[in-house]
């Protein structure tokens, strides 16, 4: 049994013409026992940026709180919202910081970048990006 499958979650994202979609299941389990069917895995960072966190529920909640904190600081300093590409790099860096004691999460980032160009990106639990430059 893998720690990534302890709570159980599934996430999908896709780009379309001037749009993206991000989808998750709503189950929170403890191995085979279902605790709730309304658990939230996708979080809004700002109007044009969504973060999905799959894997261990506890680490997903911790990471979400850290990333909201970092984004709020960014907003205060830069007086604007973060671009999805930048946010993806931030998530990647934060995950790699814990290279030898990792967060048990695999994020999916979806947003509209410059000129509302849709952007999606996933990464593994130590921040290796796929689906983006």
């Amino acid at each position, binding site marked *: 049994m893998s720690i990534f499958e302890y709570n159980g979650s599934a996430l999908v994202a896709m780009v379309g013409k001037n749009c993206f979609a991000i989808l998750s299941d709503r189950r*929170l389990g403890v191995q085979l026992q279902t*605790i709730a069917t309304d658990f939230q895995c996708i979080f809004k960072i700002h109007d044009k940026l969504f973060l999905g966190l799959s894997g261990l*529920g506890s680490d997903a909640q911790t990471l979400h709180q850290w990333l909201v904190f970092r984004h709020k600081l960014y907003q205060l300093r830069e007086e604007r919202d973060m671009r999805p590409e930048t946010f993806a790099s931030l998530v990647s860096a934060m995950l790699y910081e814990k290279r030898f004691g990792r967060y048990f999460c695999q994020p999916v980032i979806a947003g509209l970048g410059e000129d509302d160009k849709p952007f999606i990106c996933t990464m593994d639990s130590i921040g290796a990006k796929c689906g983006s430059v």
Partner: protein
Amino acid sequence: MECVFGMVGKGFALVVADSSAVNSILVHKSNEDKIMVLDSHKLMGASGEAGDRAQFTEYVQKNVSLYHYRNGIPLTTKAAANFMRGELATALRKNPYMVNIVLAGYDKETGPSLYFIDYIATLHKVDKAAFGYGSYFALSMMDRHYHPDMTVDEAIKLADQCIEEIRSRLVVAPQNFIIKIVDQDGAREHSWRRTTKD
């Protein structure tokens, strides 16, 4: 073998816990109170490693009081739940607390609420929650008979049905249970369900 469960009713929340303190095959005591009253309107039912349970629940209770003294207003149930999650999450990768928590509270603005907090700091707001081997029976009974806005009598009846299932189906079932309730009048002990005297 320990079990804690809880549910939300109309204007109240209920937490039920077993009251056995066990070491290997020996029952040290059967009137152990595992539902800590955090403040006037919060109940924290905890199950898990005995030392961690006592230590963590007292730590949370003292910090909830400290917030009240410092700021003049009590924490909301949601805030207390998030505080607990934060403490558990911080300790998780150093020296984890092996404690599972069912937090019940009543707030004037939002009414009754129940929170499920795992030992690995997974937090979720729920209508019904259960931990331990007894959870298999309690959750099944609650899935079948629970409905929103139950009265106190209906909820106590459901709690009794859960206890009955645990007693009859769990091989090493706990002897006694304690029931505590929280509503707009505050958090208090409701009753005991005993099979043995202490």
